[in-house]
């Protein structure tokens, strides 16, 4: 059901969107760029969850809704399920995907250039910079999850962590 579009097109569109917001529109304001990208993801997630829950009954509790995100929602989007779900039973969930599709082709510069900066500083700076870039690309996915959950009646905040590309964890904190 529905129409299909090539995956390469979606990948290129997302890449260009992040690049446009980060480098051209809000070049010196990464927080604004991040929140704009997040808002776009929110809209997308909102509409997608509407479409994918069309024939289902209402969810009884938060855990069911999160499980829906992990299994059905993720399968519709990425043809696989979330690999690992952890919770502290107090409103925080960690969704881990060991090979996140939108990050699977991202790879960093293997040899950071050392100018005349001392060794420890340049390594920390390179690591810092390296960590920032995948994060920008993840704001969209965080927005998608947030929008999907909001449509199911759950207000939450979502953040992402990419310490090991291409694995990626999304931390969902439900607002009481």
């Amino acid at each position, binding site marked *: 059901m529905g129409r299909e579009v090539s995956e390469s097109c979606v990948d290129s569109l997302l*890449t260009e969107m992040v*690049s446009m917001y980060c480098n051209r529109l809000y070049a010196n304001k990464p927080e604004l760029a991040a929140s704009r990208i997040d808002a776009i993801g929110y809209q997308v997630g909102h509409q997608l969850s509407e479409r994918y829950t069309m024939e289902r009954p209402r969810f009884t509790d938060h855990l069911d809704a999160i499980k829906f995100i992990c299994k059905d929602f993720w399968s519709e989007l990425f043809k696989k399920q979330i690999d690992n779900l952890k919770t502290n039973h107090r409103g925080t969930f960690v969704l881990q995907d060991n090979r996140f599709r939108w990050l699977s*082709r991202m*790879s960093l*510069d*293997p040899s950071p250039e050392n100018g005349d900066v001392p060794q420890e500083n340049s390594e920390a700076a390179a690591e810092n910079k390296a960590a920032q*870039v995948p994060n920008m*690309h993840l704001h969209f996915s965080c927005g998608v999850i947030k929008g999907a959950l909001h449509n199911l009646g759950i207000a939450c905040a979502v953040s992402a962590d990419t310490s090991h590309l291409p694995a990626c964890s999304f931390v969902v904190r439900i607002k009481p």
Partner: protein
Amino acid sequence: MQFFGGTEISPSLPAATASGNNGHMMYVFNRNGICLLYREWNRPLHTLNAQQDHKLMFGLLFSLKSLTAKMDPTSVEKGNLGVPQLPGQGCSFHSFRTNTYKLSFMESPSGIKLILITHPRTGDLRESLKYIYNLYVEYVVKNPLYTPGTPIRCELFNTALDQYVRSIS
């Protein structure tokens, strides 16, 4: 898994030809002559510095392509020698072989030139070059962090390429 690099040569080559052998290298150029990638797995002899080496290689290929197209006995129209041809237009050479190495070449319609230099007893590498071009598309072009036209610095591409080239010969 054994790392193919340094002074180790493919096991199928007899030891006698090891001395003075160019061994395995790889160049990737774009349509403007910028060397996007230069990988070296076994090159005992370095005669030029990197810049000159790249320029020489690019010039050589440009001239060879032009020459082979001009000398094509089956083609009807013959332009002037040196007129640049669109990729895919006319005929294009795909390899040449000397007694110490074989150079295999492939140009994509977008102007990306792949050059792979191997030992002389390698077979036809056109399919391998197509596979490597596929790796380039997957890991470089689709990498959100890569700017087209700049040297390739993608770890995934380097790893996949090393692994594949190791399996060719």
